[in-house]
């Protein structure tokens, strides 16, 4: 019985199917809001599902001379990581006392897997533009991961030095969300901007810059592999705001969480639509000197309990 329950939770709810369906719907919200900002009508609600279906049934081309396994491993790695992450986040929010020590570290590593998959798949696809995209993705990853980890350290400090995810949620349920303090606001800004970069949304979409390097790392992908990448992007758009809510805004055990979630998603989409793309060196400087210094200030404030 328990095996069936585990399989259900990984494959249906809150694992793969649920997260993928909601994630694809969120990509429609993204496209629709973008269209309204452009003063357009935008696609109908079933658009991402039609895209997905079409990609599933198209020919999948593997470039000549590339490593077949590594090429297909790229999207699979992201898909697996996001599925596990969805299950972990939901079970931890439903039952905060039943988690294990160090699961915050596991979550940070799982969040690192989709960009890793992109790098593996992109460098296996044997295309010069994909290589440029991979090198940019790598630089970008090192850029945003530093302030992100410092913000996580701030949260650990505020939760009394515990690296158990459940303790963070329990501490917020006892003393109010961490967001309602100066270091909490700083942490939220840092994690929100890192989320933007993790999603590859516009000010930080340097690895897949359409006008300079076509689609960057995605350039050789077609058919099922591309469909998997799109699902991973949708799932990340679902899970990363949930992660932000659960570490800073008191978890998502209640119905208010839906409003909080929509607020964060719309904020991400608005940032995406009101900014130009920056260069890779500007991105690195922004994340290390600007946001990095800000996150260290947040850490110091958290030490003094502000």
């Amino acid at each position, binding site marked *: 019985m328990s095996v069936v329950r585990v399989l259900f939770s990984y494959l249906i709810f809150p694992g793969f199917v649920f997260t993928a369906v909601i994630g694809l719907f969120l990509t429609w919200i993204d496209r629709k809001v973008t269209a309204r900002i452009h*003063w357009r009508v*935008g696609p109908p609600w079933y658009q991402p599902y039609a895209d997905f279906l079409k990609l599933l*049934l198209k020919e999948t081309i593997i470039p000549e001379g590339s490593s077949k396994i590594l090429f297909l491993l790229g999207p699979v790695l992201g898909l697996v990581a996001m599925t596990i992450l969805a299950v972990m986040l939901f079970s931890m929010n439903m039952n905060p006392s039943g988690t294990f020590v160090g699961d915050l570290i596991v979550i940070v590593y799982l969040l690192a897997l989709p960009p890793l998959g992109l790098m593996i798949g992109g460098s296996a696809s044997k295309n010069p533009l994909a290589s440029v995209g991979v090198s940019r993705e790598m630089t970008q990853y090192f850029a945003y991961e530093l302030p992100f980890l410092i913000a996580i350290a701030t949260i650990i400090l505020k939760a009394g030095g515990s690296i158990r995810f459940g303790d963070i949620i329990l501490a917020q349920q006892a003393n109010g969300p961490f967001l309602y303090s100066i270091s909490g606001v700083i942490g939220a800004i840092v994690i929100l901007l890192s989320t933007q970069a993790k999603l590859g949304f516009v000010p930080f979409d340097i690895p897949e810059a359409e006008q300079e390097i076509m689609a960057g790392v995605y350039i050789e*992908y077609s058919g099922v592999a591309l469909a998997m990448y799109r699902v991973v992007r949708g799932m990340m758009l679902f899970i990363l705001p949930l992660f932000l809510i659960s570490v800073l805004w008191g978890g998502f055990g209640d119905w208010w969480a839906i409003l909080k979630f929509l607020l964060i998603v719309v904020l991400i989409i608005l940032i995406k639509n009101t900014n130009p793309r920056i260069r890779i060196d500007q991105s690195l400087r922004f994340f290390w000197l600007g946001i990095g210094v800000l996150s260290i200030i947040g850490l110091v404030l958290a030490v003094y309990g502000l």
Partner: protein
Amino acid sequence: MANAKLWGLKKSPWVFHVAAASCNNCDIEILDVLTPRWDVERFGIVLVGSPRHADALLVTGVLNRKSLSRVLRVYEQTPKPCLVIGVGTCTCDNHMFAPSYNVVGPYDKHIPMDVYIPGCPPKPEAIISGVVKALKRL
């Protein structure tokens, strides 16, 4: 299953723009179609940067000896099934370049075409109607 495939293809044709040595007028009209005024994203049509992602190729310009091998290569790189839509009179009958020594067109001598959209350049409405006709033929 076949119906689902057809529905997906009809509802989300991603377009790759092959500018095979055209005079740029047709290219500008294609960009016009993507602007907020006509907004083809209503029908799920998106311009993509790589032929690997494409479902339809919009070819413009008269086919000459230099561009022939490139167009063929882009067509082979596109995953099947894919549509090929010729935009502009040049793609139909070589237009005013027909007597030139360099012209090897029209396109249907070399690749299977689905729809021709005449006009020099065609109006954005004509391009949209041509794409709709191509999708109806599926």
